[in-house]
């Protein structure tokens, strides 16, 4: 029986042309994506070590997961429909009278439609195989063809997913008898994934198992894979992946069983009532009255005003229909739940916590929620548009004296009301969460503006286009499919290199909110693009009106005639008006997008520049010795004028006759030199110029460079000036610099040809800086240095800052309405300039300053300045922090951290302590500009910060932080094929090594040598290599010093951590304890393995291993240190107190990928 139902159903589907259309569309999409990722449409890629192979199992799995998301559409469209069509076409009343076994009926139908989905999904595999062939083996992104990878992607992930989701959809559609529920189930899967990710935060294993797509199980297995592992290894099946598959398969079985139980082969099916309906038992026959037919007179109103009202009233019917359906209630509850969990993770449960500020509520969670809302719009608009015809009521409605436009508007309004209800729920969720966390700074205006205006405009455009598509495409699935393609096309356009708001449907600039500066200058551009698309939406509305389905039409000609008959004066004029607005806005956008006249920077353009200037590359240049600046900031007009002079000194032993200058990229700079010269070469796109001096500059002679810099004005979409309405942070990158600025590769520390520059400037050493700044009368201007003078003139505020001691090149100019928090440490003034409401983390920051001053001045040298400033800058400028002289510039993000949870990292404290420590390692100690430089700044600073943190918050918090550094390092390795860079040669961009591994390395040293000893070494290094121009230190200098001071038996630690890339694998095999009077004897068996990261061979051991014994309160009883030479070890320990837990290497003396088996609990 199943067989015949299966074949019948299969036959039905195979005869449908749309099946082949789906196949073709998915095939093309997959092929284009694959070829695009393989660089088929771009310039050829050069082979390099850091290439991610496109056809590796890992990458194929990723690509198939991505395409798999698109295939989800097929699940309701085919699997859901296979059961739904029986209800829709009322076949069920006949069909169900046959002597079917309902299990056979359901199973046959399900399996047939599942087979169809499977067949269509093979389009992607075909496309990829053809893609591999088209790209060819010569393509550097192509590895060897691996059939197993395809089998794995399909049989482990895609097909089981389709099966499980298919069961869900099939069950829900069969029981609710609504195909829309099927679509909502599919959208809800994304919500479920999000919910599990956030609900199980901190437990990656649970996240892995509970992800409906199985993606998180893959990440669980592969998160620490290096690029070379990603390029070669198959995804491990036995483990979380298998458990995940079993879990979801079992859930599907439960669904199937409940379907078999609840499904009835009857007319009315399964119904959900909010209230139990009262069935009136009273017989109608009892009443028989004489019929009176005289009809009472009521008023009929067809006035325009009434029509408007009517649109609203009618929309209520459709609105209620949607929002009171059980699926909608479940769906919105899931949406809210995912937002709540996401926010809880960000504010309470995660690693680094933020305060529930309104801007946070409206950032990532809102973005995700609104994306889901858009997808729901596609489904619910179809439901509302097709509602009358699906229920068979259209003839009744269409023969009533209601205007097409009124009906159409009522549908539009209904959809918008559904959207706005969902948006309103988002807002309420945010506010409720803020209140529940005792956070009462609720910016209702910000909520309303973002939720209903910024997002509202965007979703209304989707409502308009959805109505348009669903009206013109009478087939629901076709409509949803087309809408999905439009939605995907939005991002596809940018992949094809089309980045114009004119063409990217419903796209607008990304907005970032800052308490200091609001949405900044982005807002006009946003509204322009958004209103442009809204106008487009209204244009489609006119067309929708023309083709609104009312009269029966039988041919396309009929349809056109009908549309033509509706093309009345009102429609014509309205359409024309909107068209004029649309075209004018489009012109405006076009102009704004093309206002940046001039050449585009292309690869070939850059190489042309390099060829032209390469003879000047290594020319010795005079050094900048002092800088005088006048910086005038104009917040109202987002503009600035800077004028200044440099004193340049020839510090070399030779004459200099050519100067190479680079001016600010986005600015307009004019300059002059104090001696006669002529322009030798110039490139006004790269802003690099070479001048020949009439009279060569003799050694120790000086020359003066004077300049004026103005900003380019902002366009609607491009910000060219960093002057903001409030919270300006203008950086020194606007200033002219000397020398050829594009040095490609840093040299090795042993390379004697490396010029003696420090790591952050090629044109200067330490400089004297004198800056006069001005801004409008409501704002304060700030710069690094010491405030010398402050005055008012012509309604503007002026301040003069001077460097107390010469400083390295690096300065910022700030202007804003700040509140100032003042304090002192010994004689040093401490000031925090911040937005008035940002009081939350001030204390932590102040503590960070003091703790860093305490630690560093006690261990290394006194703090050289008389004041320290912290200045807040808006989120739109970044989320980082940096130190210029005596000033820490830090993002608004650090002012919104939640520091109340005691068991979490206090990042506000940490960042400030880190930045201030750079005064010693970064300002005071300036490493040479060669590989490994950041080890001497970032690694040491990160380590010292850890110690400062430990002093303030205790050992346990510090270890927690150290573990984060370990994961940062391990995860960072993902980016590179082989972890070949040793710490002492780290590049500036490899922060996972410099910060992550660096902190661990110095911590291990401190653990072995003792904190004091290590600090002594650091201090002596600091004294021997102060920042002076004679010789900047390299990591080799440091390692030499370090080795000199380290006992021979520990030297391997320096080699392993700093010069090689070594991994340990420790494991406790067994532990037995015996009480011996007052002490406990523990017999411990454990394995120690050590290998280089690029080899499987085990390295010989003569290594120190620490073993920690802990009591039931997790407090350390004793830390034992042993030397091991063998892989297998069995040792006896005598412990004073009975331990309940043993941890191998608790202080991270070595790096391990998996530390779970280092722990033994009794």
């Amino acid at each position, binding site marked *: 029986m199943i067989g015949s139902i299966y074949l019948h159903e299969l036959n039905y589907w195979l005869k449908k042309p749309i099946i082949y259309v789906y196949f073709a569309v998915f095939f093309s999409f997959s092929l284009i994506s694959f070829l695009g990722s393989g660089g088929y449409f771009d310039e050829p890629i050069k082979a390099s070590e850091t290439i991610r192979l496109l056809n590796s199992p890992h990458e194929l799995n990723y690509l198939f997961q991505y395409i798999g998301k698109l295939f989800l559409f097929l699940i309701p469209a085919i699997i859901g429909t296979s059961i739904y069509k029986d209800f829709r076409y009322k076949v069920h009343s006949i069909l169900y009278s046959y002597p079917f076994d309902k299990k056979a009926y359901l199973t046959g139908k399900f399996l047939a439609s599942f087979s169809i989905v499977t067949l269509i999904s093979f389009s992607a595999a075909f496309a990829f195989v053809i893609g591999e062939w088209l790209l060819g083996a010569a393509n550097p992104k192509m590895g060897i063809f691996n059939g197993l990878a395809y089998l794995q992607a399909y049989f482990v992930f895609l097909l089981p997913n389709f099966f499980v989701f298919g069961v869900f959809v099939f069950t829900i559609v069969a029981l609710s008898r609504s195909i829309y529920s099927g679509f909502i189930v599919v959208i809800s899967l994304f919500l479920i994934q999000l919910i599990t990710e956030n609900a199980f935060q901190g437990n990656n294993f649970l996240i892995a198992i509970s992800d409906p797509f199985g993606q998180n199980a893959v990440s669980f297995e592969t998160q620490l894979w290096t690029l070379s592992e990603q390029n070669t290894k198959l995804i491990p099946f036995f483990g979380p992946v298998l458990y995940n598959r079993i879990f979801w398969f079992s859930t599907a079985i439960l669904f199937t069983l409940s379907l078999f139980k609840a499904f009835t082969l009857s007319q009315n099916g399964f119904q959900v009532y909010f209230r139990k309906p009262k069935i009136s038992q009273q017989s109608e026959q009892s009443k028989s*009255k004489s019929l009176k*037919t005289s009809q009472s*007179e009521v008023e009929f109103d067809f006035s325009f005003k*009434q029509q408007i009202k009517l649109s609203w009233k*009618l929309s209520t019917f459709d609105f209620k229909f949607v929002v009171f359906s059980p699926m909608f209630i479940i769906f919105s509850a899931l949406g809210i739940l995912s937002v709540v969990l996401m926010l809880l993770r960000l504010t309470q449960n995660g690693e680094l916590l933020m305060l529930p500020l309104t801007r946070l509520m409206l950032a990532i969670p809102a973005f995700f929620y609104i994306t889901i809302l858009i997808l729901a719009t596609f489904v619910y608009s179809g439901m509302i548009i097709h509602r009358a015809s699906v229920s068979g*009521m259209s003839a009744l409605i269409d023969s*009533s004296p209601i205007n097409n436009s009124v009906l159409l508007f009522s549908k539009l309004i209904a959809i918008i009301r559904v959207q706005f209800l969902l948006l309103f729920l988002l807002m309420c969720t945010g506010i409720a969460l803020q209140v529940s966390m005792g956070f009462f700074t609720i910016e209702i205006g910000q909520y309303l503006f973002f939720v209903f205006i910024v997002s509202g405009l965007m979703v209304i455009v989707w409502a308009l286009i959805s109505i348009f598509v669903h009206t013109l495409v009478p087939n629901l699935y076709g409509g949803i499919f087309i809408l999905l393609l439009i939605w995907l096309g939005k991002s596809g356009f940018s992949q094809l290199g089309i980045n114009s708001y004119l063409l990217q449907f419903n796209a607008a600039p990304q907005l970032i909110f800052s308490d200091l500066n609001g949405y900044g200058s982005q807002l006009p551009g946003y509204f322009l693009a958004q209103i442009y698309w809204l106008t487009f939406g209204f244009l489609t509305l006119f067309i929708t009106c023309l083709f609104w389905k009312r009269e029966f039409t039988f*041919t396309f000609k*009929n349809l056109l005639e009908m549309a033509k008959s509706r093309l009345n004066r009102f429609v014509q004029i309205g359409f024309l008006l909107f068209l004029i607005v649309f075209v004018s806005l489009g012109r405006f956008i076009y102009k704004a997008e093309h206002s940046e006249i001039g050449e585009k920077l292309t690869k070939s353009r850059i190489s042309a520049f390099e060829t032209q200037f390469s003879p000047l590359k290594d020319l010795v240049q005079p050094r900048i010795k002092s800088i005088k600046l006048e910086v005038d900031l104009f917040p109202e007009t987002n503009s600035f004028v800077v004028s200044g002079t440099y004193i340049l000194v020839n510090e070399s032993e030779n004459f200099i006759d050519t100067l190479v200058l680079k001016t600010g990229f986005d600015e307009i700079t004019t300059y002059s030199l104090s001696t006669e010269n002529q322009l030798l070469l110039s490139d006004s796109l790269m802003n690099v110029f070479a001048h020949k001096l009439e009279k060569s500059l003799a050694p120790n002679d000086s020359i003066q460079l004077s300049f004026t810099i103005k900003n380019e004005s902002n366009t609607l979409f491009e910000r060219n000036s960093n002057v903001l309405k409030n919270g300006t942070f203008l950086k020194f990158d606007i200033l002219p610099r000397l020398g050829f600025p594009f040095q490609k590769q840093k040299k090795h520390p042993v390379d004697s040809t490396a010029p003696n520059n420090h790591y952050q400037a090629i044109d200067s050493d330490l400089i004297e800086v004198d800056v006069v700044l001005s801004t409008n009368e409501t704002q304060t201007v700030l710069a690094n240095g010491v405030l010398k003078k402050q005055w008012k003139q012509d309604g503007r505020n002026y301040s003069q800052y001077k460097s107390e001691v010469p400083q390295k090149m690096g300065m910022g100019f700030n202007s804003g309405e700040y509140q100032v928090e003042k304090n002192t440490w010994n004689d040093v003034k401490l000031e925090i300039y911040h937005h008035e409401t940002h009081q939350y983390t001030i204390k932590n920051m102040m503590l960070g300053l003091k703790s860093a001053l305490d630690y560093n001045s006690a261990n290394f040298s006194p703090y050289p300045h008389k004041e320290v400033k912290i200045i807040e800058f808006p989120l739109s400028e970044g989320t980082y922090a940096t130190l210029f002289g005596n000033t820490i510039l830090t993002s608004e993000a650090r002012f919104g951290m939640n520091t109340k949870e005691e068991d979490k990292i206090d990042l506000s404290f940490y960042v400030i302590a880190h930045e201030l420590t750079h005064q010693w390692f970064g300002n005071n100690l300036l490493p040479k500009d060669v590989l490994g430089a950041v080890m001497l700044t970032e690694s040491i600073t990160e380590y010292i910060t850890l110690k400062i943190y430990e002093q303030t918050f205790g050992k346990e918090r510090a270890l927690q932080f150290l573990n984060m550094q370990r994961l940062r390092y391990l995860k960072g390795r993902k980016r590179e094929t082989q972890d070949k860079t040793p710490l002492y040669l780290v590049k500036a961009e490899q922060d996972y090594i410099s910060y992550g591994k660096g902190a661990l390395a110095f911590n291990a040293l401190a653990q072995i040598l003792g904190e004091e000893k290590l600090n002594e070494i650091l201090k002596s290094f600091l004294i021997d290599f102060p920042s002076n121009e004679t010789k900047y230190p390299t990591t080799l200098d440091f390692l030499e010093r370090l080795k000199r001071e380290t006992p021979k038996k520990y030297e391997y630690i320096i080699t392993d951590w700093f010069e090689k890339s070594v991994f340990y694998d420790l494991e406790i095999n067994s532990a037995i304890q015996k009480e011996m009077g007052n002490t406990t004897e523990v017999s411990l068996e454990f394995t120690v393995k050590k290998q280089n990261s690029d080899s499987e061979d085990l390295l010989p051991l003569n290594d120190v291993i620490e073993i920690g014994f802990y009591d039931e309160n997790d407090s350390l009883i004793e830390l034992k240190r042993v030397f091991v030479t063998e892989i297998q070890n069995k040792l006896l320990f005598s412990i004073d107190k009975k331990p309940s837990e043993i941890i191998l290497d608790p202080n991270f003396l070595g790096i391990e990928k998996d530390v779970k088996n280092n722990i033994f609990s009794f």
Partner: protein
Amino acid sequence: MILNIENLQKTYPNGVTALDGISLEIGKGMFGLLGPNGAGKSSLMRTLATLQLPDSGAIHFNGLNVLEKPMELRKQLGYLPQDFGVYPKQSARKLLDYFALLKGISSKKDRNTKIEEVLELTNLSDVQKKNVSEYSGGMKQRFGIAQLLLNNPKLIIVDEPTAGLDPEERHRFLNVLRALGTEHIVLFSTHIVDDVTDLCTNLAIITKGKVLKSSSPKSAIEELNSFIWTKTILETDLEKFKSDFMLVSSHYTENNQLIIRVYSKTQPDESFEKAIPSLEDVYFITLNHSGK
């Protein structure tokens, strides 16, 4: 009050001619449209209800050009299609409120008055809170009448309303229609001849898109007076009688004999008895023997 239909023509893309020059003049009262399945009744009614455009022809209602101003007709129209559904899980009351809005009754009070009235008229007051999608066939048809009455229609078009109703329901339903017919034009189609006999003031018989006969039931029957003859025959002789006489209809008796009715100006032979003509005779003669 008059509905003028002039020479309506409609051919579907599949070649079927649904309306083939239909002209009718319909006045106040019940007007029955008789015809077999596929005769073009529904096409005609949809066209009259402004849901479908004819290829050519004209429709005037009290001087109003319907094809040019469909919206004006819709204001005065009550239409019940042959097969209709309603939004699921909605009570009669709720749905009627929706239709009343569509039909232009703006005040809540007016809508309530009107809804009470039509519910009363169609005897649905007791079940007004029940979901219409769960109504029995007859109740659903009466609901259909209730909704069409909301705008005080002057022209009521009901397509095959009695199909599938049990005799009692059918009876009750026709009573409602008849009452309406006293003041409005009620155009209703059926293939059940009895529906028309008792109720209609006028009728038209159509097939293949053509009007074969249009008159009052009474005069149509009178035309056949003393032309209908009946005889009981053996089943095996039917073919012979068919070829010899103008056979109108035949039906079996309980003892498996056939009673036939034939049309003849004179008594065919003595074995035939004179019968009282019925509308059914008119219907069959018009359908099968027109033109002969």
